[in-house]
């Protein structure tokens, strides 16, 4: 027993050591982009209630700051954090080290150079104006090459796995790793390289955006949830036999749901109807995943209190359910009629990117980074501050965007309300959003400080080392053990 345990431990230490620098580089860049993108997002939000803010210069005009912020958060923070987490988890669950990690440095460099050029291009006026594809054409190849390095690494690590069994998190990671480059490449070709005609362009755009959120960010968050719950709680996922069904049904329906973003648009009506029907079908996997994950967390309030990772994951799960619920509601034509084009549709995307994905990545980071660096987090006050601000920010923004968007929608639907009045009524909600974003930004700064203390080789000399003990084996639940068959 002892020897196998120490063998397993050695392997884990090896895996962590092989992943250390690539993950730290990816995650460090992700954090820088999180702060930069967050600052741009805050500027954009302020400009809505104070239009004179930074409006004198073309580089900071609202129409350029908004896509710059979105792309910085999605491609700068989101993709880098997902690479960091995904590579580490894939290596761990494949029980194999990340080979030739040097290439991953190259990938990180290329990716960050590409995103930087893209953001500068947007601010300089070369935006393509397609949602989440605003970065000018010249960065496409850089990003695809960088991604290819990361993606190949993830897939190769999976294919040389030492394990017999493939766990749920690996399905989600593998799927996401495959889907993103194809979504991106096809969208770039059909929109920019050989543009399709007319309203097919918004259709391709909607397909891409829905795919990015539903087939990359959500699977990453779910991979984290499915892994960290049993890992920290020491008990298996509840009703796990339903998990494969949830996986295939979730990704299968999400793939067709892009049209739901085009309700009322001048596209053939079957497209938005198909998207709506797909979103209705999404009820099944969301319910099953909720059963899986919340069922596992049921009655574990003590563990939640002790574990910051679990608390972030809980917000992530709730964010996922809320985002899916909003997706469902937005597919109902009567509701979409009122709240389309308002803050409510922005809320749906923000819930996926932040409340579902980003919180999951924060939770993952709090677990992974001490293992990679062998050190503790220096300030638990900053950890608590980060969690508090994330939770508060999610609540503020959810409430603010939902209610403000609904008010906006009601006023838009009433033709007698002049547009100036709508803007006046929304000024409060725009300011409310700015406050929420500021709260989030403060938490991110707290996280960055802690990250520097744990990861930066110079600063971390004074941080305590962390002593990890070998984790016990997960036990089959008693009832199954009693049945005594495999």
């Amino acid at each position, binding site marked *: 027993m002892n020897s196998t345990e120490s063998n*397993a431990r050695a392997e884990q230490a090896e895996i962590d050591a092989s992943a250390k620098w690539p993950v730290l580089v990816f995650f460090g860049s992700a954090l820088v982009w999180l702060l930069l993108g967050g600052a741009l997002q805050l500027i954009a939000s302020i400009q809505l209630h104070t239009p004179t803010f930074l409006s004198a210069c073309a580089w900071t005009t609202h129409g350029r700051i908004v896509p710059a912020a979105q792309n910085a958060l999605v491609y700068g923070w989101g993709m880098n954090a997902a690479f960091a987490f995904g590579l580490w988890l894939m290596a*761990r*669950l494949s*029980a194999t080290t990340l080979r030739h990690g040097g290439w991953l440095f190259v990938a990180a460099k290329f990716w960050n150079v590409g995103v930087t050029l893209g953001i500068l291009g947007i601010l300089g006026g070369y935006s393509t104006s397609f949602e989440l594809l605003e970065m000018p054409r010249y960065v496409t190849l850089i990003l695809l090459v960088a991604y290819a390095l990361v993606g190949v690494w993830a897939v190769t690590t999976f294919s040389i796995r030492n*394990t*017999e*069994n493939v*766990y749920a998190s690996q399905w989600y990671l593998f799927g996401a790793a495959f889907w993103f480059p194809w979504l991106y490449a096809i969208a770039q070709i059909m929109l920019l390289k050989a543009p399709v005609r007319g309203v097919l362009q918004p259709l391709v755009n909607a397909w891409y955006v829905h795919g990015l959120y539903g087939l990359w960010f959500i699977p990453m968050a779910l991979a984290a949830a499915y*892994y960290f719950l*049993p*890992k*920290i*709680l020491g008990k*298996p*996922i509840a*009703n*796990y*036999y*339903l998990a*494969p*069904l949830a996986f295939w*049904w979730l990704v299968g329906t999400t793939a067709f749901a892009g049209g739901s973003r085009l309700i009322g*648009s*001048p596209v*053939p*009506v*079957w497209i*938005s*109807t198909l998207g*709506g029907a797909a979103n*209705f*079908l999404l*009820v*099944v996997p969301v*319910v*099953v995943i909720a059963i899986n994950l919340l069922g596992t967390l049921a009655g574990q309030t003590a*563990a939640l209190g*002790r*574990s*910051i*990772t679990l608390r972030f994951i809980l917000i992530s799960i709730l964010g996922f359910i809320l985002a899916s619920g909003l997706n469902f509601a937005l597919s109902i*034509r009567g509701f979409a009629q009122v709240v389309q084009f308002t803050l409510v549709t922005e809320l749906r995307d923000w819930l996926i990117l932040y409340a579902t994905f980003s919180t999951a990545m924060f939770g993952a980071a*709090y677990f992974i980074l*001490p*293992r990679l660096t062998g050190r*503790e*987090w*220096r300030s*638990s006050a900053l950890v*608590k501050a980060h969690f508090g601000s994330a939770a508060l920010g999610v609540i503020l923004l959810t409430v603010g965007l939902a209610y403000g968007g609904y008010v906006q929608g009601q006023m838009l639907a009433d033709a007698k309300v002049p547009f100036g009045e709508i803007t006046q009524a929304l000024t409060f909600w725009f300011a409310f959003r700015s406050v929420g974003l500021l709260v989030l930004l403060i938490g991110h700064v707290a996280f960055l400080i802690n990250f520097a203390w744990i990861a930066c080789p110079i600063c971390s000399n004074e941080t305590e080392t*962390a002593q*990890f003990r070998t*984790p*016990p084996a*997960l*036990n*089959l639940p008693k*009832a*199954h053990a009693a*049945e005594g068959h495999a």
Partner: protein
Amino acid sequence: MSSTPDGNYRFEQGGASDDSIQQVHAQLQKQKPDKASGYSFLPLAVLGLMCSSVFFGSIYLAHYSIRFDPLVTNENARREKPGAVVQTAVPPAVLGKKVFTTICATCHQLTGQGVPGVYPPLAGSEWAQGSEERIIRIVLHGLNGPISVSGKDYSNAMASLGGVLKDEQIANALTYVRQEWGNKAPEVKAETVARIRAEVGNHPAPWTSAELLKIGQ
């Protein structure tokens, strides 16, 4: 089982090894759900949810896809095949408005009021609402010299438009004029214009109001 040593979130102990997580879950995946208390409700509930969502999703798709027609953007459009639906043509007056706005309004104005002393009005004009034989000739071949409209005199030259406009366009424009701004007169048909164009043939000069008053009633 797993927790931070001093409860201060500085780092977390793992609660289970990765190996065992994968093994245990692989076993769980193959096992049927807990039958401790007889029938397990959950799989049935999930099955029921699956079936009802597929059912309602299909009905929604069938109802609102309108034959997957590429040109239909309205979910409330008629669901029958296009052949079964009577196609309503655009009313001639609507087509005529377009011609009027482009060509005639420059002088006669969008309001049909003309310009006092320069261009005669069409709104309330007895010429516009009168014999179509006269006004078709005016449009085809032009009008020169004095003309009295609604009690006022005008003397100007109107260019011939027979070479610029087709019969249908002339008919539509005249129909529009005769049914707009309170004018009430029957529509003008393209065949009438064609007939008059053929009858008159090549008219050497624009008409005068004296000549026109002799034609028609």
